[in-house]
């Protein structure tokens, strides 16, 4: 498992694996929003939590189709399926590698980017915490979507159509944490619900992912 994780991390960082692309996309989005709605802080501050969450979510979506596509192309997915590691373990490792290369950097980059959108400083710790707690759910769900569409030649558009509705609860609770944090309200309830979604995804989705992979490898 750790060998697979290290291999995936190395592949993502080297050889144009698209490691930085999600981050750059996130930066561009945070630049475009003020250009689109106007530079006034009183306009940007209320929507900043939502924009940052939406940006993280879309940046996460960009790299999803790479999770299994390259392995399916060169046949290493078949090898992984016949390896002693159970397929749900492969799915977990893939999702973890995706999170380390996408979700974690996005969560860390959200701090500086929040300055561009005039997020109230009091909300910044909540933003970081919510993203750290919520982005694993995005990676795990995305891995599931990628497993569903791995056999398709032009699956990436379909992948976003399948995965985005699944992202809705995470987005709602994640943005709610930041919004409440910005307003100085108690955040425990949405935070706990966000953590529950992530833990549920991490615990159960790899089995669904493995089932979908098995169908696609048949």
């Amino acid at each position, binding site marked *: 498992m750790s060998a697979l994780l290290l291999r995936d991390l190395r592949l993502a960082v080297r050889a144009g694996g698209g490691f930085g692309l999600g981050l750059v996309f996130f930066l561009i989005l945070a630049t475009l929003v003020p250009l689109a709605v106007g530079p006034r802080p009183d306009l940007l501050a209320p929507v900043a939590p939502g924009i940052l969450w939406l940006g993280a979510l879309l940046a996460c979506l960009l790299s999803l189709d790479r999770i299994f596509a390259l392995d399916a192309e060169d046949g290493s997915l078949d090898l992984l399926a016949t390896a002693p590691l159970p397929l749900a373990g492969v799915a977990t490792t893939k999702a973890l590698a995706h999170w380390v290369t996408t979700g974690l950097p996005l969560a860390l980059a959200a701090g500086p980017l929040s300055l561009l959108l005039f997020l109230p400083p009091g909300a910044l710790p909540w933003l970081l915490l919510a993203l750290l707690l919520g982005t694993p759910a995005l990676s795990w769900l995305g891995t*599931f979507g990628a497993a*569903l*569409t791995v*056999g*398709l030649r032009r*699956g990436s558009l*379909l992948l976003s*159509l*399948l995965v*985005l*509705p*699944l992202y*809705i*609860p995470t987005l*709602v*609770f994640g943005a*709610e944490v930041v919004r409440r944090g910005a307003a100085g309200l108690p955040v425990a*309830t*949405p935070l706990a*619900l966000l953590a529950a*979604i992530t833990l549920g995804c991490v615990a159960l*989705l790899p089995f*669904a992912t493995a*089932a*979908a992979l098995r*169908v*696609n490898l*048949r």
Partner: protein
Amino acid sequence: MSVWEYANPRRFMAVSARLLPWVAGAAALLCAAGLTWGLFFTPEDFRMGHSVKIIYIHVPSAFVAINAWFMMLVASLIWLVRRHHVSALAARAAAPIGLVMTLVALLTGAIWGKPMWGTYWAWDPRLTAFLILGLFYLGYIALWSAIEAQDAAADLTSILCLVGTVFAVLSRYAAQFWNQGLHQGASLSLDAEENISDVFWQPLVLSIAGFTLLFLALVLLRTRTEIRRRRLHSLSLKARLA
């Protein structure tokens, strides 16, 4: 003789051919009766006036839209566990009907909402959850139509249906958490103290039954079409080989 014998496509075709006219006829009868009664022979609401009558289309279509997804879930489970092709095809057949019913419920709600709430759309939890349900239908249908291999498509859509159900329910409660509602609460609950008045209730139940039968008839029809299409496909393959 168990219920699973109807999962044999040949047997299903025979039984459904005999059943379909009756179900369709009963659906037409009940829809006509419920809608005529509701639209022409019920009093006007003292606050809402004529516009209350859209309830006879709005509530049944919303009812069918939700239960169609539930039926797809059951059919998907049967396909995953027992590998009956008819079940997978029935789930496939139900999805577009559910999508249309979702759209009908949203549209009639918007038409009613303009004079009553003063807006076509509000980010009310129920409305939002219904819109999200529509998105789930879209994804399900898109996945079915994207995959060539029929059995793989049935498997993958079934898995998507299971996961999607969990997230559709989660989204519903997330939406409730996220915003206050404008939509009224349930007015047809079996266990509630106060429901809507009998004059509205009786034709409404009739049209709900009518819409449910209409859904059944359409699912039967579409499943039969799907089975015939597969037969045609295999026959044409055979002919090409010969």
